[in-house]
C-alpha cells in the first residue's frame, strides 16, 4: 500500500513529459490526480492499521542493512497529506496560471519534488531519508534555476545553503548509524544511547538542528528563502507552504523524541526560532512586493514552529503540529491568490496596486480569509493554533522568566503578523481609483479558495483535526498526547494575549502609513545574501590559494611531496615506535655486502652522470645488481625476469636516446642541495623501515600452504609460477591487462603526438664503421643462428614454467629480447621493422587469459585451473593462461620497439622508406 502510494506520485513524475506533450499546460490537472490518489492510499493505509504504523520494505543494500523501508505513522501521514494535497492544489492552479505551452520541466520537477517529499516523510530508514532530503534540495535548486537568468544566482545560493545543511544531516546520519548500529528510524529513536551518552546526543542534536535550519530558512541560514522568490508563483507556493521548508520542520519533529531533552537543542531551537520569527515579521512589514512579503512571513512563521518544537512539551508539539497545518493552508492560499492578483493586474507591488481598482470579489474574500487565519482571527484555524501556541509558550519548562520572555517575543511576532496580514489585504485591494481589474476565471481561483476554505472549516470545527493532531503530536513527543482542539478555551491568559494582539495589530494596520514611514529607513546592516555570496567568494578564493600551492606543472614539486610525507612518517615511527620483535634467523650473509657495494656504486654513478647515455648505463648496473640480489635471495624466476627486463629497458632507452640531447643541463648547487638532502633523508627512512620490518616473523600461513600443498593441488613444482597462474591468477590477469593498457597507451600517445625528431650523429664518413651494412655484418650473422634459438628457448621456457624456472613472463621477455636483437641487427630503421600486429597480440593475450578464466566456470569458479591427462601427458589450463601472459607481454615489447624505432609518423605511409626526419618535421 505504501509503495503504491509512492508509486502513484512517481507515476505523475514519469508520465509528466508525455502528458505535457499531449495536453500542454492542462497537465497540471492530470498530474494532480495521481497525487490525490496517493493521498487517498495513504489515508487508507493508515486506517487499515489503527494503533500501529503501516510498514513496508524491500531490501536495498542488504550487506549494509539498509532497506527501502517505509513507515506511515500519524506524523508521516500528516506531512504526507500536506505534501500531496497542497501539491495537487498547486498543480491544478498552475494549469491555469502558466501560459499556454508545455512547461515539461516544471511539471516533471514539481511532481519529482512531491515524490521526494513523500519519500522523505515516509522513510523509515536513515539512508533513505537522507537521499530524499538531498533530492528535495536538488529539485528546489532546479525549480528556482529554471526561472530564467535572474534565477541562477538565487538558485546557486539556495543550493549552497541547503546542501551545506545536507552535509550536516549526513554527518548526523553517520554518527547515529555507527552509534546505534541500525539505520531504521523507528528503532534508533528508542535506543537507550540517547540518554546514556549526552555528548553524542548533543552532537547529533546540533547537526540535525543545522540541517533543519538551512532547510527551513532559520536564522542564520535564512537568506535563501526570500532570495528564491524569483521562482514562479506555483513553485514559491509549494516551496513555502508544504514542501521544502516543511522538510526541516518534519526532521525536527521526527527526532524530537530522541533529543528533546538535550539543553543545547532547546536553546538552539528556541532562540534561533524566535530570532527568525521577529526578523522575518519586521522584514515582511517593510516589503512592497506582496510575494516577497509572504516569503518573509514564511520565515517568521517557521521561526515560531521551530521555537515550539524547541520548547518540546506535549502541548508545544501539539501546537506545532496544528500550526504546521494552518500555515500550509493559509500560506499556499495566499501565495496563489497573490499570483492571481499578479496574473490579472500585472503587478504585485503594493505601490502600483494602489493605483488600480481591483474588482475581484472572490479573490478579495479568499485573501481576507487566509490573511485572517494568518493573523489569528477567531473562527479560523490560525486562531486555534495561535491560542495553543501562546498556551504552550507560557508553560515553557525552566525558570519563570524564560516562559515570560518567550511568550513576550511570541506576542510581538503575533502583533507584527497581524500587521503584515492586514498589509496584504489592504495593500492589494485598497485601491479605489484607476484601472479596473476584473475577477480571474474560476479555474484560476478555485485551488486557493479551497485552501482558504479548508482553513475556515477546520477553524470553525477544530475537533476534526483532533485524531490526526493527537497522533502526530504523540509521535513527536514520544508519549501519548491527548488533544482536544476547541475554539473557546474560556477566559484564559492566552485569550487575553489574543485580544492584546488584536488591538495592537489593528492599531498598526490603521496607522500603516505612519508605520511605513518609521520602518522604511530601517535597513539591516548585514544582508544575508551578501553573507552567502561573501562566503561563497571566500571559498572560491581559498580554493585558488590552496590550488596555488600545488598548482604547478613542475613535476619535482609534486614528486617531493610524497617523499617528504613518507620521511615524516618514518621520523614519527622512529621517535614513537613500539619495541621491535626479535629477528628470526640470520638475515645477512657476508657476501651480501658485495651486492650492497655494487648497488652503491651504480647509484652514485647514476647520480653523478653528466650524459644521458652514461646515466642509462649505470642505472643498468643497479638493475643487474638487483637481479643478483634476487638470485641471492632464492628468487630464481624473479632474478631472471629482472635480468631480461633490464636488457629490454636499456634497448628501449637506446632507441630514445638518439632523440634527446647528449648532456644533462648543469644545475646550481643551490638547487641540487635540497634534492640531495631530501634524498638522504628518504634513503635513511627506507633503510630504517626495511630494517624494522624485515625477518621479524616466521613464514606466513599462506606461503606455508603454497609450499606444502602447491604441488599436489596444481601439479606444478615451480611454486612461484603456480602462485601466478593457479592460486592468484586473478591478480595476474589484472596485471597483464594493465600491461596491455600501457602498450595501447604508448601506441595512442605516439599516434596523437609526433615524437621529437632524431638528432643527427656526427660520424666520420671515412671510418669503416660508418656504413650500417658493413657495421652490422657480425650481429646479422650471429642473429641468423641465435634468433631461432632464442625463439625456441622462449617457447621451452613457457612450457616448462610450471615445473622449473620459466613461465609466461620470462618466456615472453626472452622472446622480446630476441626481437630486440633482430631490431638491433638491422642495418636501418625501416629494415628493422618487425611486421607483427603488436596490438592484436596484446588483445589476444588478454582474451586468452580471460577465456581461460571463463573456462574455469566448468569446475565452479572464474580462473579455476582444470587439470587432466591427455594421451598420457599431464595438461592444465594454467598453461593456456600462461600463454595469454606470454602474448600480452610480447605484444607490449613489440609495441615499444615498433613504435619507438621508427622515424616517421605512426600513421604515415606504411612500408614507404622513412623520410628524412627534417622532412618529417
Amino acid at each position, binding site marked *: 500500500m505504501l509503495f503504491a502510494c509512492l508509486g502513484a506520485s512517481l507515476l505523475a513524475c514519469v508520465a509528466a513529459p508525455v502528458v505535457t506533450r499531449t495536453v500542454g499546460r492542462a497537465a497540471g490537472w492530470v498530474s494532480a490526480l495521481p497525487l490525490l490518489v496517493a493521498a487517498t492510499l495513504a489515508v487508507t493505509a493508515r486506517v487499515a492499521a489503527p494503533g500501529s504504523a503501516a510498514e513496508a520494505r524491500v531490501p536495498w543494500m542488504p550487506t549494509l542493512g539498509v532497506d527501502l523501508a517505509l513507515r506511515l505513522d500519524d506524523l508521516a501521514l500528516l506531512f504526507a497529506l500536506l505534501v500531496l494535497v497542497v501539491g495537487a492544489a498547486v498543480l491544478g492552479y498552475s494549469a491555469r496560471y502558466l501560459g499556454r505551452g508545455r512547461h515539461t520541466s516544471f511539471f516533471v520537477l514539481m511532481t519529482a519534488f512531491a515524490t521526494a517529499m513523500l519519500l522523505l516523510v515516509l522513510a523509515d530508514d536513515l539512508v533513505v531519508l537522507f537521499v530524499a532530503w538531498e533530492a528535495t534540495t536538488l529539485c528546489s535548486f532546479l525549480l528556482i534555476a529554471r526561472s530564467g537568468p535572474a534565477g541562477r544566482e538565487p538558485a546557486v545560493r539556495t543550493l549552497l545553503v541547503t546542501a551545506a545543511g545536507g552535509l550536516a544531516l549526513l554527518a548526523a546520519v553517520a554518527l547515529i548509524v555507527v552509534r546505534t548500529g541500525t539505520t531504521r528510524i523507528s528503532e534508533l529513536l528508542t535506543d537507550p544511547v540517547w540518554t546514556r551518552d549526552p555528548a553524542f546526543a548533543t552532537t547529533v542534536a546540533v547537526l540535525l538542528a543545522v540541517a533543519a535550519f538551512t532547510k527551513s530558512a532559520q536564522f542564520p541560514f535564512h537568506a535563501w528563502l526570500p532570495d528564491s522568490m524569483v521562482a514562479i508563483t506555483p513553485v514559491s507556493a509549494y516551496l513555502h507552504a508544504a514542501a521544502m521548508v516543511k522538510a526541516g520542520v518534519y526532521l525536527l519533529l521526527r527526532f524530537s523524541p530522541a533529543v528533546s531533552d538535550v539543553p543545547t537543542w532547546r536553546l538552539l531551537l528556541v532562540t534561533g526560532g524566535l530570532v527568525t520569527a521577529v526578523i522575518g515579521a519586521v522584514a515582511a512589514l517593510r516589503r512592497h512586493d506582496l510575494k516577497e512579503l509572504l516569503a518573509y512571513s514564511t520565515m517568521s512563521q517557521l521561526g515560531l514552529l521551530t521555537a515550539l518544537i524547541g520548547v518540546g512539551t506535549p502541548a508545544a508539539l501539539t501546537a506545532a503540529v496544528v500550526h504546521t497545518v494552518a500555515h500550509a493552508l493559509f500560506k499556499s492560499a495566499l501565495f496563489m491568490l497573490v499570483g492571481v492578483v499578479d496574473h490579472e493586474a500585472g503587478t504585485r507591488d503594493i505601490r502600483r496596486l494602489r493605483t488600480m481598482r481591483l474588482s475581484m470579489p472572490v479573490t478579495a474574500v479568499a485573501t481576507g480569509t487566509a490573511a485572517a487565519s494568518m493573523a489569528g482571527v477567531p473562527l479560523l484555524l490560525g486562531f486555534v493554533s495561535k491560542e495553543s501556541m501562546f498556551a504552550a509558550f507560557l508553560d515553557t519548562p525552566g525558570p519563570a522568566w524564560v516562559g515570560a520572555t518567550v511568550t513576550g517575543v511570541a506576542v510581538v511576532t503575533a502583533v507584527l503578523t497581524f500587521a503584515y496580514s492586514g498589509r496584504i489585504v489592504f495593500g492589494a485591494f485598497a485601491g479605489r481609483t484607476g484601472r479596473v481589474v476584473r475577477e480571474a476565471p474560476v479555474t484560476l481561483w478555485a485551488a486557493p479558495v479551497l485552501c482558504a476554505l479548508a482553513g475556515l472549516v477546520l477553524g470553525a470545527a477544530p475537533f476534526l483535526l483532533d485524531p490526526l493532531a493527537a497522533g502526530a503530536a504523540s509521535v513527536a513527543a514520544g508519549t501519548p498526547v491527548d488533544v482536544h482542539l476547541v475554539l473557546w478555551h474560556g477566559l484564559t491568559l492566552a485569550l487575553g494575549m489574543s485580544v492584546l494582539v488584536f488591538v495592537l495589530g489593528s492599531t498598526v494596520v490603521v496607522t500603516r502609513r505612519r508605520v511605513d514611514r518609521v520602518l522604511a529607513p530601517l535597513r539591516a546592516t548585514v544582508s544575508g545574501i551578501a553573507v552567502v555570496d561573501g562566503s561563497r567568494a571566500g571559498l572560491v578564493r581559498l580554493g585558488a590559494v590552496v590550488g596555488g600551492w600545488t598548482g604547478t606543472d613542475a613535476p619535482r614539486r609534486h614528486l*617531493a611531496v610524497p617523499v617528504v610525507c613518507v620521511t615524516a612518517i618514518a621520523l614519527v615511527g622512529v621517535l614513537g615506535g613500539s619495541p621491535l620483535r626479535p629477528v628470526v634467523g640470520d638475515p645477512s650473509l657476508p657476501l651480501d655486502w658485495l651486492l650492497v657495494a655494487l648497488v652503491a656504486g651504480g647509484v652514485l654513478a647514476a647520480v653523478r652522470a653528466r650524459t644521458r647515455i652514461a646515466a642509462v648505463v649505470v642505472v643498468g648496473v643497479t638493475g643487474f645488481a638487483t637481479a643478483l*640480489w634476487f638470485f641471492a635471495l632464492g*628468487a630464481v624466476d624473479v632474478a631472471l625476469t629482472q635480468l631480461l627486463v633490464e636488457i629490454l629497458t636499456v634497448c628501449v632507452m637506446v632507441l630514445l636516446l638518439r632523440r634527446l640531447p647528449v648532456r644533462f643541463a648543469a644545475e646550481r648547487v643551490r638547487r641540487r642541495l635540497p634534492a640531495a638532502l631530501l634524498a638522504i633523508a628518504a634513503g635513511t627512512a*627506507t633503510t630504517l623501515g626495511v630494517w624494522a620490518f624485515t625477518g621479524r616473523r616466521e613464514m606466513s600461513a599462506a606461503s606455508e600452504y603454497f609450499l606444502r600443498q602447491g604441488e599436489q593441488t596444481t601439479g606444478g613444482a615451480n611454486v612461484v609460477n603456480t602462485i601466478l597462474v593457479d592460486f592468484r591468477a586473478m591478480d595476474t590477469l589484472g596485471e597483464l591487462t594493465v600491461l596491455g593498457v600501457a602498450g595501447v597507451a604508448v601506441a595512442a600517445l605516439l599516434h596523437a603526438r609526433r615524437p621529437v625528431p632524431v638528432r643527427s650523429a656526427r660520424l666520420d664518413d671515412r671510418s669503416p664503421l660508418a656504413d650500417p651494412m658493413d657495421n652490422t655484418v657480425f650481429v646479422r650473422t650471429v642473429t641468423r643462428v641465435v634468433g631461432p634459438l632464442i625463439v625456441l628457448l622462449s617457447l621451452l621456457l613457457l612450457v616448462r614454467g610450471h615445473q622449473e624456472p620459466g613461465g609466461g613472463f620470462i618466456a615472453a621477455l626472452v622472446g622480446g629480447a630476441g626481437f630486440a636483437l633482430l631490431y638491433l641487427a638491422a642495418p636501418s630503421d625501416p629494415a628493422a621493422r618487425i611486421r607483427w600486429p603488436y596490438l592484436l597480440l596484446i588483445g589476444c593475450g588478454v582474451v586468452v587469459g580471460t577465456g581461460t578464466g571463463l573456462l574455469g566456470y566448468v569446475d565452479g569458479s572464474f580462473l579455476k585451473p582444470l587439470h587432466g591427462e591427455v594421451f598420457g601427458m599431464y595438461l592444465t589450463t594454467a598453461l593456456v593462461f600462461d600463454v595469454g601472459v606470454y602474448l600480452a607481454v610480447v605484444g607490449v615489447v613489440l609495441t615499444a620497439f615498433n613504435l*619507438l624505432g621508427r622515424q616517421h609518423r605512426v600513421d604515415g605511409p606504411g612500408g614507404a622508406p622513412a623520410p628524412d626526419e627534417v622532412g618529417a618535421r
Partner: protein
Amino acid sequence: MTLAVTAGLLVAGAVYLFLQREMLRVILGFVLLGHAVNLALMAAGGTSRRAAPFGSPEELSAVADPLPQAFVLTAIVIAFSITVFMLVLAVTGREDDTTEDDTTGEVGTGPDRPAGGSDAVPGVGTDPAADGGRR
C-alpha cells in the same frame, strides 16, 4: 640489514634523480625506486631463508617465501611497461627533455627562451651538432 641498506641507497638515488629537471632522469629515478620497492617486498618475506621454493620441501626452515617472489615478478614486468610509457612521454614532449619548472629565467625553461640559450653549458658541450646544433 644488507637488504635494508641496499633499499635505502636505491631510494636515495631515486629521490635525487626524480627531483631533477630532465624527464629522463625522472624516469631513471622511478626505475631505481622500482628496484628499491621490489627489494623491500622481498624483505617482507624474510631474508634468512634463501633456498629457491621448488616442489614440496619437507623442511621449510631454509626455503624462501614464495609469495613476495610472485608479487615482485609481476611488479617488475608492470614497472617495465610503465617505464616504456614514461619514456614515450619523454620523447613526445619538448625536444630538450626538460620538464616544466616554476622558476623563470633558469636555463632551458621553455621553447620561448632566447635563441642563444642551450641546455648544454657553454664551453662544456663537446658535441654542438648533437646538443644545440639542430635548433
